[in-house]
């Protein structure tokens, strides 16, 4: 078996990189009227608008967590989970559309609604 990438394989990987880069640029367009929802299990337990600073406590399967909203971004703090992946994910914003998940608590925090800025 060969170890290093052949020309064809290199081209395929380069194409994948380009597609992902374009995809990310499209996703990062400025957005309006953003709603973020916090889901526990299958149920939406809270919705918020990221332009209003706030602190929400969310009950989960593992002691729950707090969602801090500040300056249009949000992140998880005071998490009561063993792996702390949710807090390590860091800040999420309407631009990056990152979904924060806390598996032990069965909580997902994600952008649910938005409109794109039109010029």
């Amino acid at each position, binding site marked *: *078996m*060969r*170890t*290093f*990438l*052949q020309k064809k*394989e290199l081209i*395929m*990987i380069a194409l*994948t*990189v380009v*597609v*992902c*880069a374009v*995809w*990310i640029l499209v*996703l990062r367009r400025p957005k309006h009227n953003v709603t973020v929802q916090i*889901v526990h299990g*299958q149920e939406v337990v809270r919705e918020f608008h990221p332009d209003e600073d706030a602190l929400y406590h969310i009950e989960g399967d593992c002691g729950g967590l707090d969602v801090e909203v500040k300056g249009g971004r949000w992140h998880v703090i005071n998490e009561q989970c063993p*792996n702390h*992946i949710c807090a*390590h*994910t860091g800040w999420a914003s309407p631009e*990056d*559309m*990152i*979904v924060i*998940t806390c*598996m032990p608590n*069965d909580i*997902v925090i*994600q*952008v*649910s609604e938005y409109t794109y800025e039109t010029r």
Partner: protein
Amino acid sequence: MRPGETRKLTVLAMLSAAAVVCNILESVYIGPLFLNMRIGIANIASLIALVLYGKKGLCTVNIIRVITAPALQGTLFGTAFWISLAGVSLSTLTVLLLDPQKHSLLFLSICGAMTHSLGQVLAVALLYRQAAMAASLPYYILLSIVTGLLTGTAASLAVKHLKPVLRRY
């Protein structure tokens, strides 16, 4: 049992054990790089099995590790287990469909890493009915190319040193 078979069984058992240990070490000590993304050091053992014993070797190590690691950690059949199973199944399937004779190890490793992430994202999207999860997919795929290169390089270096040792026995 032929002598070659015994050796194969022993090496595959050791590789599976190494994969399980890597899996647990990574989930306890290394943690995710970005979002829930990990390097996937257990994949190094799977790739070594692929080079030494082909598709069957890869399947053996992957099936053993995907069940044994969560069983030892007490997370078997939990949400995280299904997500990891989806990732490993999709990446194993992809490598099985690609011809290891035609492609390079690094390419197989990168494809495996990308479909591993794809499988995990799909599982999260299905389990939580969250189509929005797709927004993280391009980030995961880009990072998978990097982690695929890392694990692929590590595996090829390991094989280079393992082959002369195996020939002696």
